[in-house]
């Protein structure tokens, strides 16, 4: 039980227990995998109404230039991330990733222009390493991991209505807008974003008021607490990568089909072309292509095909092509869904490949991502 004792908890831990959550270790935290509603209903409820997720285990990091100028912080972080941070407007957020010298992905993150500084949200399992990476490489910036804030995601078509009970101005926000707003007189930072494929919000709350804000949101009849189980099936149906599964240091952003995250300014011919770790490989792959790509995979039968299942060109398992990186049952798709890497010869939608599951070779079809139609409010 030493592992249990060493687990960290979020400010909402006692609330999860009181709601009857089944708790599991995740990235060093004791986290709710599901509530009494169950993964299937939690998933469907989020797509139909609104779900509240505790994502306080993620790292919220302030990056502020010693000069106090936003541009200095943005240009410094651009040395580590191949996205346009200087061009990000105040109150706007953008997706990105830390790359390494080989063009692999160290972590993926959300970056917000907060006026005179950057707010960066990174994965729980990577946060210590990410903070060390930024401290070591952003010489003229102060890098501060916020240990005293919770992060609550509110996702689903009714998320706006639920949040509007606490702040009527929410309807004025668009996808990837970020505002600092008092909820119940508690200063919160709200972004219109999330990781479910639905419209929704992520709300950064001071630790001392996290339970109060979460309870106020859960009071709405359309809002249910949702665990990590449904969070995973929601993001997979939405075609979103899970760091450590679908992307890591062995995958480049182009192999991972994340080239949409690179803006013009950082690409060949842009104002600030390259200048990030692995730029040579990444820009080279943008120009010349890669040998393999991340694709959506739809198993033809009912059996889920899980991560690490080997993929073959033939039903006899003779020609290995790659492997599944995420796979589960998609409650909204009403069938199994997966993602994985395949050689570019096999990435056209409609291509059939075979996954090895318990000694059988199950047919899967390469499918455009996402599996569902996102409802982001652009």
């Amino acid at each position, binding site marked *: 039980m030493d592992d249990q004792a060493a687990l960290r908890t979020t400010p909402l831990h006692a609330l999860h227990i009181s709601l009857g959550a089944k708790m599991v270790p995740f990235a060093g935290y004791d986290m709710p995998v599901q509530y009494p509603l169950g993964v299937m209903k939690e998933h469907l409820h989020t797509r139909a109404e609104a779900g509240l997720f505790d994502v306080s285990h993620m790292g919220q990091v302030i990056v502020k230039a010693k000069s106090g100028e936003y541009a200095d912080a943005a240009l410094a972080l651009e040395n580590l991330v191949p996205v346009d941070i200087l061009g990000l407007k105040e109150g706007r957020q953008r997706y990105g990733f830390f790359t390494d010298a080989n063009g692999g992905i160290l972590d993926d993150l959300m970056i917000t222009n907060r006026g005179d500084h950057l707010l960066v949200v990174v994965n729980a399992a990577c946060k210590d390493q990410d903070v060390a990476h930024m401290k070591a490489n952003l010489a003229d910036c102060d890098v501060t991991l916020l240990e005293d804030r919770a992060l609550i995601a509110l996702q689903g078509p009714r998320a706006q209505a639920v949040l509007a009970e606490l702040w009527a101005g929410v309807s004025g926000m668009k996808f990837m807008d970020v505002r600092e707003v008092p909820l119940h007189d508690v200063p919160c930072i709200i972004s219109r974003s999330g990781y479910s494929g639905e419209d929704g919000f992520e709300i950064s709350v001071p630790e001392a008021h996290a339970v109060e804000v979460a309870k106020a949101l859960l009071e709405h009849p359309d809002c249910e607490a949702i665990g990590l189980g*449904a969070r995973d099936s929601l993001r997979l149906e939405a075609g979103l990568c899970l760091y450590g599964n679908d992307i890591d240091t062995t995958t480049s952003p182009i192999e991972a089909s994340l080239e949409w995250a690179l803006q013009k300014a950082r690409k060949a011919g842009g104002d600030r072309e390259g200048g990030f770790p692995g730029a040579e490989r990444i820009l080279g792959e943008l120009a010349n292509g890669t040998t393999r790509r991340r694709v959506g995979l739809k198993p033809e039968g009912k059996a889920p095909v899980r991560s690490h299942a080997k993929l073959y060109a033939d039903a006899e398992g003779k020609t290995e092509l790659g492997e599944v990186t995420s796979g589960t049952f998609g409650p909204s798709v009403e069938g199994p869904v997966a993602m994985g890497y395949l050689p570019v010869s096999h990435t056209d939608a409609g291509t059939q490949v075979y996954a090895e599951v318990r000694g059988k070779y199950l047919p899967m079809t390469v499918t455009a991502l996402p599996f569902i139609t996102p409802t982001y409010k652009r």
Partner: protein
Amino acid sequence: MLKFTAEHEWLKLEGDVATVGITQHAADQLGDLVFVELPEVGAELTKDGNAATVESVKAASDVYSPLDGEVTEVNQAIVDDPSLVNSDPQGAAWFFKLKLKNVSDVDGLMDEAAYKDLIG
């Protein structure tokens, strides 16, 4: 006669044929099932060997054979609708019927009281 295993299977004996399923406790622990794979009729199973596979949204789990025997019948209803295992695991959602090699082997399994003690 109803018997149980430490692997959370139940077994109901009629003559030398045992109907086998998973317990309510096991179904609750697994969560919403989305896929069930059953053995072939005629398959020879050995005690504690793999007999079936169940998958929830989150993970795959094996179902073991409680005793040695031959599969005489499987329950297609739970393949068609895996959620039946969550709603009625010790009734309509039986998994398979096993013609036991040695009927007396059931004496080595737990009765309901012993199983209840096990799961607390």
